[in-house]
C-alpha cells in the first residue's frame, strides 16, 4: 500500500502538468513540425506555414509583428492569442492591436511544445522581420542577441511560474472553505476501522495518503531526521522521489533546503503542488510529474536524495531501482541518501489461533467443506501484523542493503539464515519477514551491523534516526510478510535447544517485475531440508 502504485487507479482525472510542458519547451529546433495558426495542417518550416496563413487565411504574421513592433515577448503572446481564438472558434481580426493580447495569460502556450514559439527567435532574427527593425538591433552582435534571448527566456519562465501560482491561488479561493480554521494537532494513532483491502483498493483517493501520513512510525522518522539535522539540509539541493502528497519535500524546505525537486509519477502530484503552494513553499519546491528515469530535472546534480520507497517485505513494488537510478544519475559523490540503509529480518513462527481462524476455518463453513478455498494459502505472501509471541525462534537479519553502494542487480539475492528455537513448537506454521530502516547523518558513517537494532543505532550518534516494522514495534502500514507452510503429516517434533537454518531468496517475478518471489529452504539437525516458494503481487 504505497502511494506510487496508486497512479490513476482512483477517480482522479488526467490533465497536463505545467512542469512537463515547461521542460519540453526547451526542445531544440532540429526537425520540426509546425502547426498552422488557423487549422490543423502541419508544416516542416515556419516560412511555409506563415505563407499558407497569408494565402489561405489572409493573415500576415510577419507584417503584424512589424506593424506592432513586437519583441520576443510580444510575439509569444501574439501566437498564443491567435491559437486560443482559433481553438475557441473566435475570429481573429486582421488589424490586431497590442491591447488585444496584452494579458499575461497569453504567455501560457495553447499548444504543447509549440514549434512556432520555438522558432520565434529565428523568425524575429530573419531578414523578413529584420529589414525594418531598429538600427540598434541590426547592429547587435550575435553574442548580444543570444544574451538577450536567454534573458527573455528567463523572464518568460518567471512569468510562467507566476502565472501557474496565480492559477493555483484562484483555484484555492474558489475551493470550498471551512468554518473553523482553528489550530489542531495532527491526529495520532491507528485509523479507526478497517475497510476491506481488496474491494476498495480504488475506493478512496485520499485513503492511501491518509494511511501513510497517519503511519506515525514512518512519518515521524522522516520528520525527526530532517528537523533534527537542519544543518545537513541548510542550503542544499534535495531530490524527493515518489513525493506523494509532498510531505517530505516540505519537511526539507522547512529545514532550510535551498531547493527541493519533488518527483512523482502519480496524479497525486497535483495535490502536492497545491499543498506546497498553500504552505508558501512554491519558490523552494519544484514538482515534476513523471518517472524519474524519464523526466528532465531542472538541475544536473543534487546534494541529498530523500525517498520513502519501501514496500511490503521492503522490496515489493520495486521502487528502490528508481532511487538507485537517481543516485547514480544525480547524486553528488559525497551526497546523502535518506534513509541510508535497511535490514531485512525473518523468524520462524507458530500461531495456532491464527491458523485455526484463517486456515482450518475453511474445513467447516456452515457445515460445508470449503477446503478448495485453502488453495493458494501457502503460495501467497500474506500481509499481516502479527504479535511478538507468534515467533517461535530468534529473529535473524539475513540482508543489509547499503543504499550508497548497492547495485540494482543485487536486489535479487540469496542469503543464509538461521534461528535458535525459543520454544518447542509442534510443527512450524511458517515464517515472518520484516525490515528496519536506518537514517545516518553522513555518508562516512559505517553501515550498521546486521544485528544492530534501531534503538542501538539511534543511541550511537546524535541525529541518527531508525525504526522497525517488526512485531516488537508499533504496527506500521507495512505490517509484516507472513509466509505459511503446509502442515507436515505427522507434525515434526522439534527439540530444544535446536537451531534451524537454510537459505532465503528474494527475486522479481518473471511475469511482473514489481512483484516479488520469496523462496525459503529450511533444515534442522535432526531433519532433512525442505523448500517452499511464495509470491507477493
Amino acid at each position, binding site marked *: 500500500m504505497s502511494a506510487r502504485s496508486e497512479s490513476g487507479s482512483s*477517480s482522479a482525472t488526467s490533465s497536463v502538468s505545467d512542469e512537463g510542458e515547461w521542460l519540453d519547451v526547451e526542445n531544440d529546433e532540429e526537425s520540426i513540425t509546425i502547426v498552422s495558426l488557423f487549422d490543423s495542417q502541419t508544416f516542416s518550416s515556419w516560412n511555409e506555414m506563415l505563407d499558407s496563413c497569408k494565402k489561405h487565411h489572409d493573415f500576415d504574421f510577419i507584417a503584424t509583428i512589424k506593424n506592432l513592433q513586437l519583441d520576443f515577448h510580444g510575439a509569444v503572446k501574439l501566437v498564443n492569442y491567435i491559437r486560443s481564438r482559433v481553438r475557441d472558434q473566435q475570429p481573429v481580426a486582421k488589424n490586431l492591436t497590442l491591447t488585444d493580447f496584452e494579458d499575461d495569460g497569453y504567455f501560457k502556450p495553447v499548444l504543447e511544445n509549440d514549434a512556432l514559439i520555438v522558432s520565434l527567435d529565428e523568425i524575429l532574427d530573419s531578414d523578413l522581420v529584420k529589414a525594418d527593425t531598429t538600427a540598434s538591433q541590426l547592429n547587435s552582435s550575435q553574442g548580444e542577441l543570444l544574451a538577450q534571448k536567454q534573458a527573455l527566456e528567463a523572464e518568460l519562465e518567471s512569468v510562467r511560474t507566476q502565472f501557474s501560482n496565480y492559477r493555483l491561488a484562484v483555484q484555492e479561493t474558489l475551493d470550498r472553505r471551512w468554518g473553523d480554521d482553528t489550530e489542531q494537532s495532527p491526529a495520532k494513532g491507528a485509523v479507526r476501522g478497517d475497510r*476491506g483491502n481488496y474491494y476498495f*483498493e480504488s475506493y478512496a483517493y485520499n485513503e492511501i495518503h491518509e494511511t501513510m501520513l497517519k503511519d506515525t512510525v514512518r512519518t515521524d522518522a522522516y520528520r525527526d531526521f530532517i528537523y533534527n539535522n537542519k544543518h545537513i539540509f541548510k542550503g542544499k539541493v534535495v531530490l524527493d522521489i515518489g513525493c506523494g502528497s509532498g510531505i517530505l519535500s516540505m519537511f526539507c524546505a522547512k529545514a532550510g533546503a535551498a531547493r527541493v525537486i519533488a518527483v512523482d509519477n502519480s496524479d497525486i502530484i497535483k*495535490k502536492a503542488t497545491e*499543498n506546497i503552494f498553500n504552505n508558501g513553499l512554491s519558490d523552494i519546491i519544484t514538482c515534476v510529474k513523471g518517472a524519474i528515469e524519464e523526466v528532465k530535472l531542472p538541475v544536473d546534480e543534487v546534494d541529498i536524495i530523500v525517498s520513502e520507497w519501501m514496500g511490503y517485505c521492503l522490496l515489493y513494488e520495486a521502487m528502490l531501482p528508481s532511487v538507485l537510478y537517481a543516485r547514480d544519475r544525480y547524486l553528488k559523490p559525497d551526497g546523502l541518501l535518506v534513509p541510508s540503509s535497511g535490514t531485512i529480518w525473518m523468524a520462524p513462527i507458530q500461531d495456532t489461533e491464527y491458523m485455526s481462524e484463517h486456515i482450518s476455518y475453511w474445513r467447516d463453513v*456452515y457445515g*460445508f*467443506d470449503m477446503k478448495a478455498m485453502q488453495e493458494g494459502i501457502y503460495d501467497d505472501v500474506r500481509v499481516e501484523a502479527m504479535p511478538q509471541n507468534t515467533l517461535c525462534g530468534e529473529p535473524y537479519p539475513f540482508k543489509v542493503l547499503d543504499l550508497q553502494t548497492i547495485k540494482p542487480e543485487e536486489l535479487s539475492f540469496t542469503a543464509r539464515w538461521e534461528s535458535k528455537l525459543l520454544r518447542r513448537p509442534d510443527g512450524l506454521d511458517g515464517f515472518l519477514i520484516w525490515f528496519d530502516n536506518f537514517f545516518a547523518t553522513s555518508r562516512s558513517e559505517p553501515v550498521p551491523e546486521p544485528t544492530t537494532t534501531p534503538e542501538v543505532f539511534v543511541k550511537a550518534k546524535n541525529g541518527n534516526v531508525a525504526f522497525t516494522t517488526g512485531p516488537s514495534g508499533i504496527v506500521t502500514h507495512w505490517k509484516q510478510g507472513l509466509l505459511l507452510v503446509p502442515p507436515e503429516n505427522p507434525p515434526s517434533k522439534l527439540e530444544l535447544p535446536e537451531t534451524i537454518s537454510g537459505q532465503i531468496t528474494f527475486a522479481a517475478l518473471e511475469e511482473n517485475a514489481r512483484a516479488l518471489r520469496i523462496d525459503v529452504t529450511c533444515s534442522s539437525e535432526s531433519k532433512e531440508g525442505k523448500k517452499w516458494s511464495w509470491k507477493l503481487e
Partner: protein
Amino acid sequence: MSGDKMEVELAEQKLKTMEHSEQHYFKSYDHHGIHEEMLKDEVRTRSYMNAIVQNKHIFKDKVVLDVGCGTGILSMFAAKSGAKHVIGVDMSTIIFKAREIVKVNGLSDKITLIQGKMEEIELPFPQVDIIISEWMGYFLLYESMLDTVLYARDKYLVKDGLIFPDKATIFFAGIEDGDYKEEKIGFWDNVYGFDYSPLKATALSEPLVDTVDLKAVVTDPVPVLTLDLYTCTTADLAFNTPFTLTAKRDDFIHALVSWFDIDFTACHKPIRFSTGPHTKYTHWKQTVFYIEDVLTVQNGEEVQCKLDVKPNDKNRRDLDIEVDYSFQVNDATRNASGHSAYKMC
C-alpha cells in the same frame, strides 16, 4: 479438472478484455479475503441460511437460480433444502473454487455453476421458480448486483416465482461525530504543521464506510427508499426524495449516516436483518456523509433534507450522491443550510 483449467484461462482472458473498472469489480472478488469476510459476516450468512433451510417446504423440488453465487454457499443451502436443481452464476473466477467446493460436498448433481455475465450466458432451464441472491453493496447500491438480479427476474422467473430476499430499505439519520470528523476531515488542516486543505475537499466528498456507535445517533431514522424486488426496475436505482430528520435530544449533527434493512417476506415466518448502528456488526458497516456545517439541534427540531442518488454516467457501478440540508429555527444563529456532493467510486 483439465476442462476446468481451460475454462479458467478463457475466463481470465475474457476478463482482460473488459474495461478496467469492470475488471476491477469482478477481479476484486477473486481474493479469498473478501469471501472470508462475507462468510464470516454471521448476520448476513445466517439470515440467508435461516431464510432457506427453515423453508424447505418452499424450496422442495424447485428450480433455483443463485445470482452472483461466489463460493456457492447459498446454492448449497438451497440444494440441502431439497431444491430440484440449483443454478449458480458468477462472473468472477471464484466460481471455479465453488465448483470444487460443491463437488467435495457431494452436491455436483444438484448444482450447476456457470461462469459468465447473466446477460450473456444461457441457463439449462428456461425458467426458474426461485431467485436467491446476495447482491447488496455498501450503501445498498454501491457496486451492487441488483440490476443483474432484475435482469434475471425479468428473463427467467416464473410468474408467481419467489425472490430471496425481496425487499430492501435504505435509512438515514443524523449523528454527532465531532471527534471523528476532526480526525478524518480536520486532519488535513494541519498535517505535521502543513496546510493540506486540497485533500480536505476530496475527503469530504468521499462517503466513509465505517461503524457508527448507536449513542452517536441524534435523530430518528427515516426510510428514504424501499425497493420491492418483484416490481422495481433499474430506473428506480436513480432516485431523489425529500426527508425530514427530527432530533430526539439536544445535540450537534456533524454528519448523516445511512444503512439498509433486508427482508425475506416469502419465508414462512418473515426474516429480516438490518445493517444499522442499532444492531450487530455486518461487513457493510454503515455509510457516513459528512456535511460542511455543524448543526446545533434541540429536541424535537427538524432538519429538512433532500437526497439525490444516481449511478455515475461514466461508470455505472459508481454512485453520485447529493444531499441538500436546511435547518431553520427561530434562533437565527443556529440556522444553516447547505449542499454536499459525494461520489462513491
